[in-house]
């Protein structure tokens, strides 16, 4: 039986809000609802892959296998939307670069003319959802032989290394700009220190992604055999540090609660 169930309440008009400080429950709720695909990844990496790699869980554990399969499919199901998003962003960025019109992508508040480097970066972002879509089809619906998407995995490795390497450089650049010694105000020092700590946590996750990208590329194009334990450890690092960064950033913020 078909069950359309995604109903929601249609609110209207201005709403009164109350501000409260975030606590760990708020951060957990925010993480699971805003980063639901990362939450699925955290479940199968920290709940199944890591215990299996450490020998705490048997490879034949049926429940763990079902959890991993479903969480993986859940995460991969985002790929068509991510693909559409990446293509749309690339088209907008290319148009801005070619015509010189300022645009604001995503959460950007200021419209700018996009440089060629941004076009290349956005275009590279299309590779990962294509790879995820192929993997999703392989696992779920069409059962494409894994060998046929082998090369795509390698290309994805290159794109991942490129994108995450770029992001790491940006984060390092942000660190360089945010020097505490320039400040005299105590409040400003604390705020900048917080930003520095958040960026450091982000860099660890980004470097782990770069390592995963390099390993994927080497495994596909150079036939290098990698111990699965290394990949599990790197995946766990990306998950743990992404959660830490998210929690660190959000625990310090205030949230607005609708007062009706």
């Amino acid at each position, binding site marked *: 039986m078909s069950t359309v169930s995604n109903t929601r309440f249609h609110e209207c008009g201005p709403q009164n809000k109350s501000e409260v400080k975030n606590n760990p*429950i708020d951060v957990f709720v925010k993480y699971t609802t805003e980063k639901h695909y990362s939450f699925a990844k955290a479940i199968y990496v920290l709940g199944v892959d890591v215990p299996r790699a450490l020998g705490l869980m048997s490879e034949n554990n049926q429940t763990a296998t079902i959890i991993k399969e479903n969480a993986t499919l859940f995460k991969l199901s985002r790929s068509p939307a991510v693909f559409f998003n990446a293509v749309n962003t690339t088209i907008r960025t290319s148009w801005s670069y070619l015509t010189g019109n*300022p645009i604001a992508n995503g959460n950007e508040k200021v419209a700018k003319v996009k440089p060629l480097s941004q076009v290349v970066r956005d275009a590279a972002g299309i590779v990962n959802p294509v790879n995820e879509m192929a993997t999703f089809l392989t696992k779920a619906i069409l059962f494409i032989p894994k060998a046929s998407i082998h090369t795509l995995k390698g290309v994805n490795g290159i794109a991942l290394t490129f994108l995450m390497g770029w992001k790491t450089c940006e984060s390092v650049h942000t660190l360089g700009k945010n020097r505490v010694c320039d400040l005299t105000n105590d409040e400003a020092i604390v705020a900048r220190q917080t930003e520095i700590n958040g960026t450091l946590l982000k860099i660890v996750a980004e470097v782990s992604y770069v390592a995963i990208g390099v390993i994927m590329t080497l495994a596909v194009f150079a036939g290098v055999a990698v111990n699965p334990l290394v990949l599990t450890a790197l995946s766990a690092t990306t998950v743990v540090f992404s959660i830490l960064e998210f929690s660190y950033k959000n625990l310090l913020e205030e949230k607005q609660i609708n007062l009706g």
Partner: protein
Amino acid sequence: MAATTLNPKTVANNYSVSQFANDFSKMASSRDGAKDLLEVVINACNWMSHLGMNKEIAGATSSTLGPIKQGFSITDLIHHFGGLYDQIRVSEVKDSDALKREVFHHAILGVKSGAEFAMFLNTTGLYVIKEGMKSIKTIFWMALGVFDVVNIYSNVGKIKDYRAQLDQVRIQNHREILESKINLTYLQIIQSVTLVAMAAISLVSIVFAAAAQGFLFNPVVMLGLSSAWLVLQFVNHFYDKIIAHRENNLFAVRIWPKAKEA
């Protein structure tokens, strides 16, 4: 590098294709939107299976995507738990009507998500619920039905508010926007009616299985209703975006320049 701050004047007058693409990609990235899009594919596969077109692939796709869609119930459940937790925290500063409305909203959708989560456990085989499934489906459809009946009442009240506003507004463009909002609310009511109909049919077929016969209980009716619900879901979403866009333009022309002068 040229940089200009975004102001409402830079927004194009018409709802362009690129604006649509942006709104669509935002919707697809959101939790609700992702669930709706999965539902579209599942619905299309159900129609294909029903019409005998590529039955095997359609069946495999539908049965694979079903549990994925149900998996969203975990995050939905946490979201509504968080909503209830928030209401408890602000209960001292909040008036009782608004509090009751919010608590009802989160409680009933929390119950629905809980029932959907139980269905997810059963479908994936993580925890097989044998006899209990009948009760879970009853709770699921009952929660949806009750919620949408309340939604209909709320929307009727909203139409009255808009009509009252319409009587006081003299600017033609603003009047057109309010009229569009009234039309949108009617569409939302129709959407809620399709869901209430689905809930009623499902409840009768679950609770009084022996009496569930005839045209109303034909799978095509359920498929048709769910397709209608989905079409209305997307129509309403983008109609709402178009209205917001027009409203933005209106205030950009009438209010923003004045604010700038001030």
